[in-house]
């Protein structure tokens, strides 16, 4: 039996843990730059606030209905996510963390009855709620696809927040195929063209037809809704293929030094991330996005990027800043209003793997590895960005707005909840 445990309105719920006054009230969380709505409580959904809606469009609605508005506080959300996942893992060893707010669990108890499994899910849900303050819903099914579908019903129809489905459940006759995991609008249109709109109808089509029309992915989807598991838990990602840091600017950036300053900050973050995962980048790519609504008329590209293969793989902030700045110099066009920039690290390799280059002296880079260690230790102890490279600048004008950010209750001594 597969379980999908999914946090209810996760970002809004994180805010509510430390501010219970918000329970029962509409809450929205905005994207990085306070631009768009990225999360809504049920009450905010009921007011008709849509996902991704630009904040300026809902301002009057927010005032009228006293909607609580937050800038996204990813530090807090990441910590709360880890807590939820830890509780899940403590109760089920076969757990796949699927996203910041979802995990698949695989119950391997051959003799267990459905009632036993439902009881397990109910207890688990209560435990996560009590221990972390985050409400979750759990869908159960013989396959991941059915468990995911069951989760929709757990949220919508079950006051207990737990719902089971199997291939014979009568609910499948009313559920739209669009609710299925991996079925997008294009998929949906092609199915509708042959008269298939409900999940139960899809379960009736022949496997041969499905494979011909939708390939092996479609065939697996069909088998999964018929109760034959095609997807197992994914093993945790051991080492990543790439790592990226990118952000939008609060205000468009027009001059090169400011662009380089922003990139230096992202390079700093990238370096910290690489070192945290004990990886080194063999190559980096810098992206810059122009504000497409204010583009110069010369037809220059909306997004431009350039990569460089590094002489020696590195996780050293100083070097990453150096290369990011050099690439920015190449990409920069005067008169363009830049909206967003980012750095991608690729060709990652483990920190300790041996790589030498006949033409590069290793000694200085070894010495700065120790500098990085010291830097990380200081910033870890004293708080992020206590010590940083001058290239990052002092008073960024391009920094994210985040005007309505809640406190970092779980990661910062100075911002603890006060009682």
């Amino acid at each position, binding site marked *: 039996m597969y379980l999908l445990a999914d946090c209810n309105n996760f970002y809004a719920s994180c805010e509510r843990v430390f501010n*219970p*006054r918000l329970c029962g009230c509409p809450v929205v969380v905005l994207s990085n730059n306070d631009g768009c709505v990225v999360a809504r409580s049920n009450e905010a959904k009921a007011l008709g606030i849509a996902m991704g809606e630009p904040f300026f469009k809902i301002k009057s609605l927010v005032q009228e209905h006293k909607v609580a508005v937050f800038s996204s506080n990813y530090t807090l959300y990441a910590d709360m996510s*880890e*807590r*939820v996942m*830890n*509780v899940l893992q*403590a109760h089920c060893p076969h757990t796949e963390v699927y996203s910041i707010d979802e995990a698949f669990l695989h119950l391997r108890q051959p003799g267990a009855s459905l009632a036993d499994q439902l009881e397990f899910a109910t207890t688990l849900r209560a*435990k996560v709620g*009590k*221990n*972390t*303050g985050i409400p979750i819903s759990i869908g159960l099914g013989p396959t991941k696809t059915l468990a995911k579908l069951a989760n929709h019903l757990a949220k919508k129809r079950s006051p207990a927040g737990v719902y089971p489905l199997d291939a014979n459940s009568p609910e499948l006759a009313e559920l739209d195929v669009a609710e299925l995991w991996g079925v997008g609008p294009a998929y949906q249109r092609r199915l509708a063209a042959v008269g298939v709109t409900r999940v139960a109808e899809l379960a009736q089509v022949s496997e041969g037809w499905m494979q011909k029309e939708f390939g092996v992915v479609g065939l697996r989807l069909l088998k999964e809704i018929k109760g034959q598991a095609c997807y197992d838990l994914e093993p945790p990602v051991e080492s990543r293929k790439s790592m990226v840091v990118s952000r939008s600017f609060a205000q468009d950036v027009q001059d090169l030094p400011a662009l380089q300053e922003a990139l230096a900050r992202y390079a700093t973050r990238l370096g910290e991330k690489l070192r945290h995962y004990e990886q080194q980048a063999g190559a980096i790519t810098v992206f810059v996005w122009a504000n497409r609504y204010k583009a110069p008329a010369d037809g220059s590209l909306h997004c431009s990027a350039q990569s460089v293969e590094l002489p020696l793989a590195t996780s050293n902030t100083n070097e990453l800043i150096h290369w990011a700045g050099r690439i920015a110099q190449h990409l920069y066009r005067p008169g363009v209003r830049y909206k967003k920039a980012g750095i991608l690290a690729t060709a990652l390799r483990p920190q300790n793997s041996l790589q030498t280059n006949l033409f590069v002296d290793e*000694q200085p880079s*070894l*010495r700065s*590895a*120790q500098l990085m260690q010291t830097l990380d230790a200081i910033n870890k102890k004293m708080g992020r960005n206590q010590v940083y490279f001058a290239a990052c600048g002092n008073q960024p004008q391009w920094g994210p707005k985040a005007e309505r950010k809640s406190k970092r*209750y*779980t990661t910062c*001594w100075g911002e*603890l*909840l*006060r*009682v």
Partner: protein
Amino acid sequence: MSSANSVGDTRVPVIKISRIRTELPYFQSVHAGFPSPADDYLEEKLNLDNYLIKNPASTFFIRADGDSMTGAGIYPEDILIVDRSLQAKSKDVIVAWLDGDFTLKRLVYEQGRCWLRPENPQFTAIEVIAENDFRVWGVVTHVIHQPYEL
């Protein structure tokens, strides 16, 4: 023999020691063959996290704000270690949500009634009745108090 140092019964070429020391500053210390007799007794250092936190996923730090609990040794600015996973029982110091505010009090069940009792004579106990919006947020397991300004 002039090119080697004798330490205990292990011989180490002198030249190697000097090279390691001057050119690779990362090796914090170089053990030239003589093992420390204390190595076999090495244990992990005492770690406050292990001592104070039984359930990391459900443990939160909270800053004490008022002085209603000074009798329980909780002063303003102290750090409270709060475990949400514990079932609050009578006599526990708890962080509670009561009618729109957080409060820090001792929970007392007495003859079928439920009280939030302060530990400072200047404050009065609050009886929790069915009409209150009352929830236990977490149970205080430890208090970290700094006895004087450092």
